[in-house]
């Protein structure tokens, strides 16, 4: 069927043994590699920094549209960085309700 010479058989056998050995080692490496915890806590995870975000990103905050995002940028230019989220209320159109909605999604760097 295969019509192999003795040397050819030895080469095929060698390659198959190497492949099986490699597959076995690979299997063991996969089997014994559990998830390892490295560190914990990341308070700003997935939140938007209102001191660094650009207009497009600010628009991702619920209740913030084109104009309000522009006003936030203008405020930042004129008054510097926000020191607390409540500073947003100084911006025209940023109501208490908008701030409450946004609170969970923003952070101060």
């Amino acid at each position: 069927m295969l019509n192999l010479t003795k040397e050819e058989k030895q080469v095929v056998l060698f390659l198959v043994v190497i492949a099986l050995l490699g597959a076995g080692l690979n299997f063991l490496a996969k089997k014994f590699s559990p998830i390892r915890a490295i560190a914990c806590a990341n308070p700003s995870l997935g939140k938007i920094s209102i001191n660094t975000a650009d207009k497009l990103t600010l628009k991702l905050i619920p209740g913030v549209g084109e104009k309000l995002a522009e006003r936030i940028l203008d405020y930042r230019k004129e008054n510097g960085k926000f020191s607390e989220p409540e500073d947003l209320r100084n911006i025209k159109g940023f109501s208490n309700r908008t701030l409450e909605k946004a609170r969970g999604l923003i952070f101060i760097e």
Partner: protein
Amino acid sequence: MKKPLVWLALLFSLGILASSCIKIPLAWLYLSAGSILLALIFLLKRKFLGEILLALLVLICGMIWLNNYWVISGRHILRFHYQSQEVYVLRGWVNSQPAAEDNRTSFLFRIEEIADDQSRQTCCGEILVMVKGILQVEYGEELILEGTLHRPFRGYLRRQGIFRIARVKSPYFIRKTGSNKGWPIKRMILRFKSAIETRFESGLTPICAGIVEAMILGEEKNVPVKIYKDMVRSGTVHILVVSGSNVGVVGFIIILLLKIFRVPRRLRLILCVPLLLTYCFLTGASNPVVRATIMAVVFLFAYFLKRQTDIYNSCSLAVIVILGLNPNQIFDIGFQLSFASVLAIAFFYPRLKDRFKLDQLKCRCLRFPAEGCLVSFSAWIGTAGLIAVYFRMVSPITVLANLLIVPLASIITLSGFSLLVAQSVSSYLALSFASVNEFLVSLLLSLNSLLLQVPHAYFYF
């Protein structure tokens, strides 16, 4: 000529297929392989028994290969329990050329760490990242991104080993931390590919650029859906996904260029190998290209060593290499069509040629189209069944369409490469080359539309 690789490839593939149908524990498979190995030590010299045992061992090797490929690491992203609305921080690196479309960027991401608001953990695996907005990143760049995790609905992604999608709301949530990951050669090749794409897009109209890019780089994202569907109907879509014929054309161009520069014959053959491999990576190393590249490299080496080549042996080597790298490819339609067409041409074409006594035709202008027709017909015999099963379609026009469109596609590939060279020389020269490209592409599209209008050109069932 002996065809040992054909049997080995066949047995290895059979093992993979058997493993996908019958679930045998890996331990049992290893035990059987070990027993056969032990027996082989004593029986290798025996002609018949030795060969039977060796064949069995290759078959079991195929089974182990797929079984092992399906084993998911304990650290794999698939093992990570996520909440669909929760945001996670993912650290890793870009493992593909990013694609930007409709204000959305997507790329493959090799994940190394994952963190939620409680902890940070090591992780591995590949995910598809989809970012809302245009993000400028390239292969090998290390990123930290924040996004939600989802399960892909498309079975195609899961077959490619991508079990999770990360959606990122905006490029703002992505930070670049370095660019030292990945394979430097691949990074260089992908940069080169981007440069070529930019050149085509600047010199040609969008539709023409999309088609030329697909033919030369295998990048079909810019081909309009209607054109793509029309090509599927006429059975000529293989010209839009870089196939064996493209590799042949590129090999021809390389050899010709090296000949023009008076490079010695043996050096020409040696230089052609790395250049073909570069082209293989440039086009995303899809199955047909890998197959054609391996076959071309085998042919070049055989020519270099003044040895005979056998198409079945080189095809089998390509099967072993592709399935060795990813045994899941056996279920890929591209893999099946690619090998079915080549094997059908290799098997039927010489027989049909003898049957119709084409060698007796004296007139070359008659013999050449007749031979082309037989090649196209042979490929159709090999692929018609698979196309009927997968696409629920039969396309009798394929034979005629390929006869006309494949030579035209080869000319477009050549003129596309010429355009690239012309663009580097002078913009005025490039303009005339671009016009030729535009004309050829519109001719190809018109021809394809015309062929589809022939009654019963194709039908769905």
